[in-house]
């Protein structure tokens, strides 16, 4: 499975890039699994994701809770709570 990851706001700044393409193993089933997997091998990701309660996500541009299944997601975005308007 190949996923295009997008980061926004301070998540983007802490990770140091706006996007990256990853291929997680099959046991990465939810957004939360994906975050754990990214944090496992990268101190930068681990630091950006340290406070899970402040993270929000979208799968293929639909907002989802972190325990949502990835399914056959092509695009996953991880970002802080929104503050527009």
């Amino acid at each position, binding site marked *: 499975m190949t996923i295009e990851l*997008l980061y*926004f*706001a*301070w998540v*983007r700044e802490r990770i140091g890039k706006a996007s990256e393409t990853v291929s997680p193993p099959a046991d990465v089933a939810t957004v939360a699994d994906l975050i754990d997997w990214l944090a496992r091998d990268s101190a930068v990701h681990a630091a950006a994701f340290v406070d899970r309660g402040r993270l929000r996500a*979208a799968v293929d*541009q639909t*907002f989802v809770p972190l325990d949502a299944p990835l399914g056959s997601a092509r695009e996953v*975005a991880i*970002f*802080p*709570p*929104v*503050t*527009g*308007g």
Partner: protein
Amino acid sequence: MIAVTVSPAVIDAGVEFAAISMTGAGGIATFVGLVRGDDGVATLALEHYPGATEAALEALAEQSVARWELIGARITHRVGDMHPGEIVVFVGTAARHRGAALEACAFLIDRLKTEAPFWKKETRGDQTSWVEPRGSDDAAAARWKA
């Protein structure tokens, strides 16, 4: 008539108002959010999620048109760097009756604040910080649950 725009262009309230008032409706309600001039912010930077933002705003506009039988709904949101006194967002609703226009306008700005993927970063002097979400925004959005 639904019109959603997300762009770094400066928003001209007169142009926006003319667009929403061309519907022949009896009542036009608008809300305009500006970069405040009174709390020391020199630059406000708006980041967004291209594609998802427009989809979220169009979905909100469609909900408002269906719920309040609007003749028109217009959302124009600026992104990028902006300065005090400049317009961040324009929301306009057109309806036969004022109650529908006013309620729908409040609905759109309340829900936009919590559902559309925008993030604000403020620069004050040499300090830059991301704006924290406000609980009052969640409360304002929740009151519109059908």
